[in-house]
Structures are given as structure tokens and as C-alpha cells.
């Protein structure tokens, strides 16, 4: 589904990513782990087109996209749920959910689907998204992304600021989508949770990939201790 080769990204003379290569096979879930500052979010932003890479190839479903603009990449079915609040604060919850259909199906009833996924959103449809609590905004952000019928879903630290119960619900939703054939690339803070969902794991540090393997194997590995701060 996703094939990234030799990605190099620089900001103002600083190399944020050096020679990153990774693959997300069809219908699988891949976790991207590593300490803060490793370049995980940068990788996602390069794939979704918010950052132009200096060097490297990015292909989605066989289509080369490294020179494409973000909105074009989005229309290809690549949905990025960004770190932080990926919502429109001065639009209502309803309007935020309606936006989800922009890229793909115009007729989908994204509002009802979103409310079904996260009932609390259903009770706040007319509220301005900016007035929701932090976690509710995160839920809205994910709901919007899921409604957009992604082929490749990239999720950046979705659990940040969320209650454990909700994190469970989110990951159940992700699990369902994965079972339904969506490829998922997951950057996640909670290593356990990520490993519970992912088929494969890449570990990044200082702008490069330092380890890769199946998640079952990663549980045993020593690299986990060194990079992730503890056995998993």
C-alpha cells in the first residue's frame, strides 16, 4: 500500500529525516515508535504532503506521490490524523463531520456515522468544535478521518490526552477498519497499545529507522528497552 524509500527531509539546514524507508503492506497495521524528536511526525507529514522531501520516493498503491500537493494526496485516499487537534475550531461539530465527505463520497451521512462512533459527539452537534474538551476534540478528529473512507490511514498520537476507556474504543474502531481492509500507519505514545494493534513495528531514532520487526518479536527485544524506555 505504502512504500517509502530513502526519504530525506530537511528544515533550514537541519536534517529531520535521514534515509527513512518503510513499507505498509496492504490491509495491515504498522506502528512507528520511538522517542520524541525521532522524526515520526515529520515522516507522516512528508507522506501526506505537508512537507516536501528533499530526496526519496513515496508511493501509495503504486502511485508516486512525493511531488504531489497535500490535497491531491488526500483525494487519493490518504487520510492523516495530525498530532494535536485536527479539527476546525470555529465550525460546529456537525460541520466538522460534514467536511469529512469532502474528499470522497459526497452523499455519505457522515454526521450520523460520527455520532454512532462516538456518542458524545452526537450530543454536541451544534457546539463549536473549539469549545469541546481536549479529548472530545481528539475524538472528533478521528471520527472525521474515519468518515473519509481512507485507503491509507495515518494516525499521529491519537491517544494523547484521552481517557484509557476512550483509547480502547478508538483502537477498537481502528481494529475494525483494519479488518475491513484499511491500511494503517500508527504513531503512538503508548507502546503496549500500539503493539496490541500493529502487525509490524518500525522504531525510529534521530531521524532514521533503527529497528523493524513483527510486533510479537518486538515484545522480547532489547531495542525496546533502550529506545522505548522499558520492557513491553
Amino acid at each position, binding site marked *: 500500500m505504502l512504500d517509502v524509500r530513502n526519504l530525506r527531509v530537511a528544515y533550514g539546514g537541519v536534517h529531520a529525516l535521514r534515509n527513512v524507508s518503510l513499507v505498509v503492506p496492504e490491509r495491515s497495521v504498522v506502528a512507528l515508535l520511538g522517542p520524541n*524528536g525521532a522524526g515520526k511526525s515529520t515522516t507522516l507529514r512528508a507522506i501526506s504532503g505537508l512537507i516536501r522531501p528533499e530526496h526519496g520516493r513515496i508511493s501509495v498503491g503504486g502511485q508516486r506521490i512525493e511531488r504531489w500537493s497535500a490535497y491531491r494526496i*488526500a483525494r487519493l485516499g490518504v487520510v492523516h490524523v495530525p498530532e*494535536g487537534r485536527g479539527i476546525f475550531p470555529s465550525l460546529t461539530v456537525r460541520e466538522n463531520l460534514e467536511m469529512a465527505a469532502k474528499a470522497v463520497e459526497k452523499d455519505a451521512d457522515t454526521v450520523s456515522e460520527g455520532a454512532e462512533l462516538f456518542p458524545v459527539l452526537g450530543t454536541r452537534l451544534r457546539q463549536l468544535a473549539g469549545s469541546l474538551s481536549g479529548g472530545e476534540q481528539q475524538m472528533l478528529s478521528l471520527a472525521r478521518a474515519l468518515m473519509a473512507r481512507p485507503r491509507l490511514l495515518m494516525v499521529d498520537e491519537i491517544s494523547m490526552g484521552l481517557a484509557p476507556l476512550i483509547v480502547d474504543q478508538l483502537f477498537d474502531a481502528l481494529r475494525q477498519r483494519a479488518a475491513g481492509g484499511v491500511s494503517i500507519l500508527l504513531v503512538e505514545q503508548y507502546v503496549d497499545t500500539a503493539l496490541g494493534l500493529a502487525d509490524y513495528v518500525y522504531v525510529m531514532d*534521530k531521524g532514521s529507522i533503527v529497528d523493524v520487526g513483527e510486533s510479537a518479536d518486538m515484545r522480547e527485544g532489547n531495542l525496546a528497552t533502550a529506545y522505548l524506555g522499558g520492557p513491553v
Partner: protein
Amino acid sequence: MSAFWPFIVIGLFTGSVYGLSAMGVVLTYKTVGVFNLAYGAVAMFCAYTYWELHDHWHLSAWIAMPILFLVVAPIIGIALEALYRPLAGLSAEVLIVVSLGVLALLASLVPIIYGSQDRQLQAIFPIKTFVLGSHLHVGYDQMGTLLISLLMAGVLWALLRHTSFGTSTRAVVDNPDLADMIGIHGDNIRRAAWILSSVFAALVGILISPSQGLDINQLILVVIFAFAPAVLGFLYGLPAAYLGGLALGILGSILSKYSNSGTVANIEAALPYLAFFALLVLFGPRLKEVGAATRPLSVARTTSAAVGNAGRRASKFVVGVAGRRVGLDRRLAVGLAAFVLALMAPLAFHGLGLFIITGAMIYALIALTLVVLTGWAGQISLAQFAFVGVGAFTVGHLSGTHGEHFLFATLIGVLLAAPLGLIVGAASLRLSGLYLALATLAFALIMDQVVFNRVDVSRGITGITVPRPQFFGISFTGRASLYELVAIIFGLAAITAYALRNGPIGRRLHILRDSPLAASTLGVNLVVTKLIAFTICGMVAALGGALYGAWQQSITPFDFMWSASLQLLLVVVLGGRSNISGALLAGTTFGVLIIPGIPPDVTKAIQLTIAFGVIGLAQEPEGTVAMTKRQTNHVMAVMRPLPRRRSRRAGAAAAPAAVVVAGTTVAANGGPRVNGQDRRVAATIGAREGTNGHAG
């Protein structure tokens, strides 16, 4: 009651002009995220274009209108979109300055393209009137304007709230990155929104120009009248803006029934501005700037040198004094040297030249208040010249007309500015950013109408004569002596400001701009701090006014109009609003602009350059000084042969400024810095592994 009807009807027609303009301003703000102060200028430019096509080239309206609406206005829209695209996320004062640049550009383009002769306009609508009720003659043009504006209100409201396009524009303004990621073509949407805004401006222009006349300043002003209803529009939507405009028109019309005496006439004239100020302050906390919520998520630019530093970073000259080594702050040393040089200027400059640099220094003093207030404390003020005017006219009256002692007159002027500073400061307690800027603008406009335009204050066009100062037995009548006086005062002010900047007071102001919320929870009394800042800066501006009056010796209300305050903000932001040298640059610009005898083309060229200069703000929002500093640092860094040795406390190797992206930092070496925290954790893990054999 029946006596009121004619006034109400007339008020409806005037009001529909306000309502139209207000809708245009609100439309632009909501769909594009820019409060376009130059909206009236766009409308005016389009009006001029239309009349050129229609009157001058004698094209029929059926040809001229499509050209205007389908060609000219869209081109303007696309040009504006291209201009504003790199400026997204910049602070309110920078965006205001950009729209001022656009205003200046359009205003200077009109005489260049269309010449400056007077024009006779043919009406769009038939020049007939019909009779309403028993005696009221209503023009077809007035009726037509009213009906069209009603129609547009409905159409635009529906467009904004109930179409996918409307929602998309608001989404793009709110979170442009996210809009792109969703698959909304942000650039296209923005272009369409700007085109819509310009087309509507063109409509406003041709509808109101027959009644207002085709006068640059008049047309620009009409839109400013519309700012009050625009505030209602920000809160309650386009129809509210329109209805507010109607209300304003009716109210003004009814008041005009009573305006025979001077005071009421002034208040009636100031009504739109009083309403503007009142509405802003009243609704203050509920007014949210568009796109403000997502600024932290977008890529932030690194700023130039740190501010408020407690002396740790100041580079020093090390001087041998009496056998001991003394560190002298480098910038202070340079400043003192410049000061000494400045005092010697009368040796090189005489007559007119000396006059001009005196004026430049007075302007720099006034600019300094804006640097402190806006650059440091983050409180945008478009009212500084109102304080300048207070100082000037007080000295003019007391010292000029009544022969009082200059120092006494100045003191009174400065004291008079204090309560006014408090009023403006009070607005800052409820407002910030764009809305604070607008409130201070409203204040300046009110001062213009209610105070400066009063004949007993300003003697109208004739103005007041201000004598040169005389005190302590010294007469400062001569140009050289006045210059020295001004130079000393400015020098003291600059040195004081510099000393404050790096000290606790400077830090207090800077945290006010960076994060008032955090400051408040740490113990800063925001109310007191803001009020003091505004009051003192107002008082110093008034001092500048006293000097201004003494320098120019003849002052009229036109010297202190709202446009002077806007111009001040423009040159200060361009120069560098966070630096004292920015104030100097502003003063220099002023000096250049007042050189008499410059051919008009050169003046226009200078104005155009300034207008284009705002584009440079995209590169360096902190202005020219910061840009120069950055380039100088870059050159110095390249030229420096060896890395500087650092003390143990200063820690890791010299790093170029890192770039902030969405809250994470990529350090210079491409990874998380090995700082004390990591060492601590490593030590803890090591210790635990030593004892229990497992970490965590």
C-alpha cells in the same frame, strides 16, 4: 412622530450604504481571514475603473459592468490572494500594516492610472424621483441601492451558511493545513473567496460613488463608517451587519435633525466611531479572531534575538580601566557613541537639513512609544497620534495663545494625556489583537471629530501657532538649539528604554505579549500592567507632541489625524517594532518623506516602495532591523573562524536556531538533545538495573 419619517427614510438609504460596506468587510474577514482596512480602497479603485470605462470611454453599462465584475475585480482578488498567502498566521499588527500597504498602493495607483482631474458621474439609475407618502421625494438610485443591498444580504448569508463553498472557506480560514489534508484545495478556495470579496467591493464602489462623489478619501472613509455594524456582523452574521448599518444610518439621520450647535454636530459626525468603540468594548471578550486558534499548529518561524535577557547574552566590550577589566554592553556602547555623534550633528547640518533631522528625531520618540507598547507589550495602538495632538494643542494654546511658560504647558499637556491613556488602556482589558487595534482606531477617530475638529480647539484650517521653547534662561528658538534639546530628550528616552528592556520591567512587558494567561497565573496583575503601559506611552507621546508643535510652529488638526497613527504603525512595523532601532528607522522614514521639493514622482515612488515593502514582512515579520540583523549574523557566523568556547554551565555545543514544527523540535544534530534529563533517566535505569535487574 410624522416629522421623523423623512429622516428615517433618508437614514435607511444612507444606512444601506453602510450596511453594504459592512457586509463586504465581514464577508472578507469570514471567508479569507483578513480584516481588510483597504476594503474601501478596493471599492474606490473599482469605482474609478468603472467610471473610466463608462464615462471616459463611453462604453455602455452593459459592457462596462461585465468587464468590471468579470475581469477587473477578479484580477484584483487574485492579486490580493497571492499577496496574503505567505502571510498566514502572522500577528494582527503585521496584517493591519499589510492592508495599509495595499491601501497606500491603490490610493497612489489611481492618480497614476486615471489621472487626477475631477469627474462628473453619470448615474446608474434613472435620475428620476418618485414620491413616497405625501411629500417625500425618493430618488431611484437610493431605492435601487436599498433593494440591491437587501438582496445581497440574503444571497451572501445563504452562501456563507448554507453552501458547501461557504463552509469550505471558513474551514480554510480556520485550519488551512487540515483543509489541505482533507482534500479541500485551499489555494483555489482562497482565490475564489478573494474574488468574491473584490467583486462585492466593486459593487459597493459603483453603488455608493454617485452619492458620495468619486473622491479617494471619501470612499475610503465611508467604509470606516461601516466598521461599527461590521462588529455586529462578526458576532451575529452578515444580516446583522446589514441591519446594523441601517440602524446606524437612521440614528445618524435623526441626530442630524438636531445638529445646529457645534457640539452636537461633532457628536453626530463622530457617531459611527462612538458606536464602533462602544460595540467593541461591549462585546470584547466574545470577539474571537478567525484562524487564531490554529496558529500554534502551523510552522512557526524562529524569531530573531531573545528579548528581556537578564544580561547573560549581551555581548560585551571588555575594556581595561585603571588596571581592571570592565565589561561594557556592546549595544549600549554603540548607542552612546551614536548619541555623541548625534549631538554633533549641527556641525554638519544647517538650516533645512537640521530642521528635517529634528523632525525625524521627534517622530522617532513617538515611534518609541509604539515600540514599547506594541512591539514589547503586544498591545496594538492606533491612537498614538491622538496623544501627540493633545500635547501639541495644549502647548499651542497655553504657551502660544496665552503666553504660559513652555515647561508648564508641556506638563499640562502630558498630564491631560494620562486619563486618555487610561481610556484606551481600559479597552485593552477587554480586547486584544485585531479588535484592540480597531478599538484604538475608533478612539483616534473620535478624538479627531470630537476634539481636534472643534474650531475652538484647533482653529480649523488656520491652525495654531506654537512658539519655540524658552526655559532655564535658554532660548531654543534657533534650529540648532532646538535640535540639541530634542536630541537630548530622545537620547534619554532611548537609553531608558534600552535599560528597561533588559531588566525586570522589560520582561514584564514581554510576557504580556507572549502569554498573558501564564503571566496572570504567575502573579502579574494584568489590569495594572496594561493601564500603566498605555498611560505612560500616551504621556510620552504627548511630550513628543509638545516638541512637534514647537518644531513645526504651526499645527492644524490634519497633523494628528487617524491616518497619522496608521502611518506610524506602518513604518514602525516595517522598521522593526520590537527594537529601539526600529523607532529610529521610522523616524528616518518620516524625515525622508518630509523633504520638500522632491518631485511628485519620487514621492509616489517612495510611497509605492513602502507599499511593496510590506510584502517583505512575509520574509521577516519582525521588520527591517531584524532582517538586517539576521543577515549580519549569518555573515558573521560564516566568517567566524573558530567556535566560541562555552562554559560548563552553558552546556552543549553551539546550535543554530532550531525550527519549531507543531510543537516538536528537531535539534541541530537531528535528534533529541542529550540533556540533563536523559542523563538522569539513564542513571536511574542503570541504578535500577543494578539492583533489580529490570528497568522501569
